[in-house]
């Protein structure tokens, strides 16, 4: 059955195929396997009697015309008479097909809107909705097929036009290029779309570590789906809309990664390691997406105060040091330390924008005029400067190694160790104030 028929026998087979084209695809392929087998045997016998290939006439004498042959086969196999196959329920199938295509278009739209919406919560919901709609599109598509081969989509005028266009593009490639595109390009594409869609979703909405896992899992899943699709083309109903998402997401992701710091470009961000939760990918402190490098607290009376900041879990809210020691670079090559004491002192840059390590000045003065008092004072009274440090919660963590400094006190300290970012408990403070 793997023989390739040539000449009149191939033409005969093609005509039989045309005569039986109304059969379900699976049955058609199976019965044509048998017919191929038959034609191979008959051709072999006829070739034994003659020289060269048997003529079309010889085949027709032996087997009847292709139409007679097909009719005989149809009757004996109990297939429905030609032209009567499965017409009545076609209306429902067409409706399912139409809604399936609509859903396949709308689903990716939801997904993309979700990915690029600012808020993680609604974005995640939109993504889920989009995936659900794509799933619905696939289900409707399968319903529309009713066991027929997806090729039926190409039998509509629009479908055949699209197929012809794509074939025209492919025909301009040499056969070698086409084969390379298939054997090399296809797996690469599977892996790429899996990484981007799997990792991208978690990169935007989830934790950094989960992003890596999701990217790997996405790649594996994508390859699996790709293989399944090769075996069962009905998977195309799920794959095509997802490919649309991926074709849009892949370039966007690449651009965002190159530019750096885009909404989906957090892959190359070193800050994601070990962090979790929303915004897990961005290191340090942000407000409305903008990085915060220093905090200048003022008390209720509008006086600058020095405070230690902790979050609701008692973790110090640390920011990298920007004082002279950090700015000039550490001679021993360790990373600059962090502090949760604010305002932290910042090395004053000279006119060239650089600070001289040997002659460095620091300041914790706000780089802005003290803000006016708020019109409506907050209900909870702020602690007074003197009491603020004493009344701060002491988390169940090692006690800071030095006494908390009050504003105005000058206690220059060089970090003794360089803990990793966000290591709980170790609060290295540097409070060189003047």
């Amino acid at each position, binding site marked *: 059955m793997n023989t390739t028929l040539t000449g009149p026998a191939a033409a005969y087979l093609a005509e039989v195929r045309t005569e039986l084209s109304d059969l379900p695809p699976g*049955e058609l392929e199976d019965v044509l396997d048998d017919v191929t087998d038959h034609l191979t045997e008959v051709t072999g016998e006829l070739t034994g009697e003659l020289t060269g290939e048997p003529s079309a006439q010889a085949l027709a004498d032996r087997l009847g015309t292709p139409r007679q042959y097909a009719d*005989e086969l149809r009757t*004996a196999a109990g297939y429905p008479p030609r032209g009567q196959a499965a017409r009545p329920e076609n209306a429902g199938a067409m409706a399912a097909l139409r809604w399936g295509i609509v859903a396949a278009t709308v689903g990716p739209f939801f997904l993309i809107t979700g990915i690029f919406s600012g808020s993680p919560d609604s974005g995640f919901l939109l993504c889920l909705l989009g995936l659900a709609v794509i799933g619905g599109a696939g289900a409707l598509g399968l319903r529309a097929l009713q066991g027929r081969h997806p090729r039926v989509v190409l039998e509509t005028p629009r479908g055949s036009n699209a197929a012809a266009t794509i074939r025209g593009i492919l025909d301009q490639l040499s056969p070698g290029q086409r084969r390379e595109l298939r054997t090399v390009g296809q797996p690469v594409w599977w892996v790429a779309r899996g990484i981007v869609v799997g990792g991208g979703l978690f990169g935007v909405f989830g934790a950094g570590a989960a992003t890596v896992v999701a990217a790997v899992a996405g790649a594996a899943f994508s390859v699996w789906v790709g293989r399944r699709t090769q075996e069962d083309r009905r998977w195309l109903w799920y794959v095509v809309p997802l490919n649309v998402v991926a074709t849009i997401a892949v370039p966007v992701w690449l651009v965002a990664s190159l530019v750096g710091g885009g909404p989906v470009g957090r892959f190359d961000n070193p800050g994601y390691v070990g962090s979790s939760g929303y915004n897990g990918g961005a290191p340090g402190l942000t407000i409305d997406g903008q990085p915060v490098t220093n905090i200048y607290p003022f008390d209720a009376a509008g006086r600058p105060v020095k405070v230690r900041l902790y979050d609701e879990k008692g973790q110090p809210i640390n920011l990298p040091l920007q004082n002279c020691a950090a700015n000039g670079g550490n001679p021993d090559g360790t990373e600059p330390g962090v502090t949760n004491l604010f305002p932290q002192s910042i090395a004053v840059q000279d006119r060239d924008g650089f600070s001289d390590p040997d002659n460095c000045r620091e300041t914790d003065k706000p780089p802005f005029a003290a803000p006016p008092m708020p019109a409506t004072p907050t209900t909870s009274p702020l602690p007074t400067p003197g009491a603020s440090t004493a009344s701060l919660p002491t988390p169940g963590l090692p006690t800071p190694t030095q006494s908390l400094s009050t504003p105005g006190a000058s206690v220059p300290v060089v970090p003794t160790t360089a803990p990793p970012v966000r290591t709980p408990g170790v609060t290295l403070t540097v409070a060189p104030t003047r």
Partner: protein
Amino acid sequence: MDPSQLLKGVLDLAVLAVLREADGYGYDVLRRLRAAGLEDVADASVYGTLRRLFAAGALTTYVLPSEEGPHRKYYGLNKTGRDLLAQSTKTWHHFADTMSVLLEEEAA
């Protein structure tokens, strides 16, 4: 009387009977039918009958490579097929006996 008309009604039975001896691919079944004396059997109808019996669940199918090159799809009887053959055989004998009695009466 045209034997090919008669054959249409009993082709199922003939194909099942041929496959009872041994599994066979399409053309093999055809050859065995011819060898058994059913020269008038139409090629395409044998292939069609195999497909119908397979669709009815009476046959199993598998592919084997052949010495000459092409892989061949073999058909064989399963339990349903053997049951069908036994039942059809009974029906056939009953029918043939009835016809024989009828024809003898006519002749007598």
